[in-house]
C-alpha cells in the first residue's frame, strides 16, 4: 500500500519541472487563503491592536472631546488592590468600645477612604472585611465589580469544565451502543444544542421563577409539599448554580457528539483483545477507551474552557449580573463598561485582561495534557 503510493508520488514529481510548479502552487495557496487572512486581519488582529491602543487612552464611544493618552491608568484602576487595617475605637482607658450587642466597634471606613488626608486610599472600594481580634482588615479594590466578576467567571469555569465534559462523556458512553431506539436518545440529548441560547435563557427564567416556576412546582410535588419554593434567580447563592445547570444542559449535546466521534474511532479489535485478556468493563474503559480518547479530551477541554470563560448571553438575558453582582462575568462587564456606559477604553482594558486570562489558562492546559514521549 505505502510502497505503491510512494511510487506514484515519485513518478508525478519526476515527470514535471517541479521548482516552477511549486512556486505556482504556493502562489495559488496564498491566493486561496486571502479571504481567510483578510477576515482574520480585519476582525481579529486589527481590533486586537486597536483594543490594546484604546486601553492606554481615555477613548469614549462617542465624545466631542479629543482622545488623550493615559498610560496604564485604566489597568491600575481595574486591577489595583490594597488592604486597610482599622483598629477598634478605644475609650480613655484603652479598652475597645463595645456596641449594644457586645461587638467591638470600628471607625467608619468611608472616613478613611474618602478623606483627603489619606490620598493613598482615594478611589478604592470595599470588597470584603474580616474582623480579627480588635482589628478589622478590609480588602479594597479599584473596581470591586470587576474583581467579583473575575471570581464568578473562574467559579463558573471551574464547575462547568469538568462537569459538562464528564456529563458529555457519560451520555456518549450511554448512546454508543447498537440497541434499538438509541437514535431517539441521541436526538433527545442533542436537541437543546439547536435551540438558541437566548431562547433557552428566557425559558429558564420562567422555569426558575420564584412564585409559580416549573422547577419549584416539580420540587414541591415530588417532596409532597415539604419543599419551600426558592426564588432561584433572587439569591446570591443559587443564581450562579442555576445558570450553570442551564448552560450545561444546553451545551452538553455538542460535546456528547464529539466524545461519540472519539469513541467510534477506537478500533474494535482492541476491545476484542481486552476481552480475550479477561478485562472487565472498568479495566476496558481505563486501559482502552480513555487512552484512545486522549486527543478528543484535549480538544473538548480547551473548547469548553474558552466557552465557559466567555460566559455572557445567559447573564445578559437572565440576571444582568445581579443579584449583588453574584452572576456578573468579565465579558458582561466589558460590554457594560464599553458599550452601555460608552467607555471604550475601559471596556478594551477588560477585554485585554480577559485575553491574557484565556491565553494563560489554555497554555497551562496544553502543558498539562501534552503527550508524554517515552
Amino acid at each position: 500500500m505505502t510502497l505503491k503510493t510512494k511510487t506514484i508520488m515519485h513518478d508525478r514529481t519526476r515527470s514535471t519541472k517541479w521548482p516552477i510548479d511549486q512556486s505556482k502552487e504556493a502562489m495559488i495557496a496564498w491566493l486561496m487563503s486571502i479571504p481567510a487572512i483578510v477576515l482574520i486581519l480585519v476582525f481579529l488582529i486589527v481590533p486586537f491592536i486597536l483594543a490594546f491602543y484604546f486601553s492606554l487612552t481615555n477613548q469614549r464611544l462617542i465624545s466631542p472631546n479629543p482622545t488623550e493618552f493615559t498610560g496604564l491608568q485604566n489597568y491600575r484602576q481595574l486591577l489595583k488592590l490594597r488592604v486597610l487595617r482599622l483598629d477598634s475605637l478605644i475609650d480613655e482607658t484603652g479598652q475597645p468600645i463595645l456596641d449594644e450587642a457586645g461587638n467591638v466597634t470600628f471607625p467608619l471606613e468611608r472616613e478613611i477612604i474618602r478623606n483627603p488626608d489619606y490620598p493613598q486610599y482615594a478611589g478604592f472600594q470595599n470588597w470584603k472585611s474580616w474582623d480579627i481580634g480588635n482589628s478589622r482588615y478590609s480588602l479594597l479594590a479599584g473596581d470591586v465589580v470587576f474583581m467579583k466578576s473575575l471570581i464568578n467567571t473562574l467559579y463558573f469555569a471551574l464547575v462547568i469544565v469538568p462537569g459538562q465534559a464528564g456529563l458529555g462523556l457519560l451520555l456518549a458512553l450511554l448512546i454508543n451502543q447498537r440497541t434499538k431506539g438509541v437514535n431517539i436518545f441521541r436526538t433527545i440529548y442533542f436537541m437543546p444544542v439547536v435551540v438558541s441560547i437566548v431562547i433557552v435563557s428566557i425559558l429558564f427564567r420562567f422555569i426558575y421563577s420564584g412564585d409559580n416556576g416549573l422547577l419549584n412546582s416539580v420540587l414541591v410535588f415530588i417532596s409532597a409539599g415539604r419543599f419551600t419554593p426558592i426564588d432561584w434567580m433572587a439569591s446570591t447563592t443559587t443564581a450562579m448554580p442555576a445558570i450553570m445547570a442551564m448552560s450545561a444542559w444546553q451545551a452538553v449535546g455538542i460535546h456528547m457528539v464529539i466524545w461519540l466521534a472519539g469513541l467510534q474511532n477506537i478500533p474494535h479489535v482492541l476491545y476484542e483483545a481486552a476481552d480475550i485478556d479477561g478485562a472487565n468493563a472498568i479495566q476496558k474503559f481505563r486501559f482502552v477507551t480513555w487512552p484512545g480518547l486522549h486527543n478528543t479530551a484535549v480538544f473538548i477541554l480547551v473548547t469548553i474552557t474558552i466557552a465557559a470563560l466567555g460566559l455572557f448571553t445567559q447573564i445578559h438575558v437572565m440576571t444582568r449580573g445581579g443579584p449583588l453582582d453574584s452572576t456578573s462575568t468579565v465579558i458582561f462587564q466589558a460590554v457594560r463598561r464599553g458599550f452601555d456606559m460608552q467607555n471604550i477604553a475601559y471596556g478594551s482594558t477588560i477585554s485585554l485582561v480577559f485575553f491574557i486570562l484565556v491565553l494563560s489558562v489554555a497554555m497551562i492546559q496544553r502543558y498539562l495534557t501534552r503527550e508524554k514521549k517515552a
Partner: protein
Amino acid sequence: MKINKVFCSMIAMLIVFSLVLTACGTAAPNGPDTTAPDVVDETTEETVGDPSSTPITLTMWYHGAGNEVERNILLGIINDYNSSQDKYVVVVQDFPQISYNESVVAAALAGNLPDIIDVDGPVMPNWAWAGYLSPLQLSDGALDDFLPTTIGMWGGEVYSVGLWEAACALYARKSVLDAYGIRIPTLEQPWDLEEFDAALETLTASGEFDYALDLGMAWTGEWYPYGFSPFLQSFGGDIIDRSTFTTAEGVLNGPEAIAFGEWWQSLFVRGLAPGTTQDPADRDTGFIEGRYALMWNGNWAGASALEPFGDDLLILPAPDFGNGSRIGAGSWQFGISAASQHKEGATEFIEFMMQDQYLVAFSDGINNIPSTLTAAATSKNFSSGAPFEIFFDYSAAQATLRPPTPAYLTAALIFEKALADIANGADVVNTLDNATDDINADIAANGGYGFDGSVVGPSITEDAIATGR
C-alpha cells in the same frame, strides 16, 4: 526567494487594505459633521430650483415598535403630512424601545442617522453634546403653549420637543383606604414619610394583599431613575448635583440620600414591596387583580386600572419626604439629527406634528398627557372633569427633570444598579459611595461634559418645588 517576495507583498497589501478599512471605521464618529454639509447644500438647492422634481425622502426613527395603536397614530400623521405637500415624503422606521438607544448610538458611529429622531427627554443632552442632534429652528411662538418639561433644552438652545408629557402617581382604591382608616392625601396635603410608611404597614398587616406597594421593580432600565429618583429628590438628595453638574458627591451619598437608601432597603426587608425579581406579568396585573394595595405607576397605566375599579379608583400624589412631592418629567421627544441633509423639511414636519389635533390623537390613543392646555381641553382623558385630569395638575406642580446633563446617560445606569443592589440587601452607605465614585469618574473622564464646576442653577433643595416659588 520568489515565494517570500510574493508573500511579503501580499501581506503588505493586506495591511494597507485593513488600515484603510479601519481608518474608515474610526473616522465615522466625526463623519456626520464634517462630510454631510457639502451634500446638503447641493440637494436642497436643486430641489428649491425645481419644485416639480421627485419629492425628497425624510427618514424618521421611532422607538414604539410593537405598539399598534401608537404606530397607527404616527402613520396617520405622516400620511396627512405627505399628502399636504409634495416636496417631502416622510418614511418611518420602528425600533423596539429596549434597543432603540443602542441603535441610535451605533448609527451615529457609522454615520447612518436618519433625518428625524425621537429621543427620550433625559438622554437628549447627551446626544446634543455628542453632536448628533442639531438645534431646532422652530418658527417664533411655536412653543408658547407647550409645558416647559416637554421642551428639550441644552446649552440655551431647543433641541427637541415632546408631543406629550408623562406623570406618575400612586394608584389606590377608595374602598381599601377607607376600610383601613387611611387618610386620602391631596395635592395640597400629600402623605409625609411617617404617614405613608404607616399606611404601608397597615395594609401589609391586613394580610389581604401579597404586597402593600407595587413599585414596578420588574421594569429594569430607565424606569428606575424615572420612577424612583423623584423619591430620592423628595428626600433632598439627587443623582448629580444639579447646581454644577460636575459631581454627585454629597447629593447621592449625603445624609439625605443615605436616609432614602435606608428607607428604600427597609421596604423590601419589611416585605412591603415586591423586589427585583418581580414577574413583569405581576407588575401588569397585580394591582388590578387586588394582589397589591397600592401601585406606583405612570398615567399610561390609567386606562387599564380605571376599567375594573371605576369610581373606586384613586390617583394619589407622590408622598412628600421632606423636599416637596416630586415626580419625573420629560418623556419622548422629537429632534433632528446633525447629519440630516434636509433640516428644513425635518423642522417643517416636526412643526406639523405639533398641531393640537395630533397631540389629542396621541393622548386619546396611548393615554399620555397632551403637551398644551388647549389640546388637553379637547382630549378624552385630560379635559376638565375627565378621569385623568389630575395628572395634568400633578405634572404642573411636581414635575422634576432628571438632571439635564450629558452625564445622565451613564449616571442613570449606575443609579439603577445602586437601587437594585440596595433592594437586594447591599450595604447602603458603601453602595451609594461607590455609585458616587463611578459617576464622578465618568464626569472626570469626559472633561466635565462641558461644565467647569461653576454654579449654573439651583440645587435640588433650592429649586422651585422645594422653595414653593
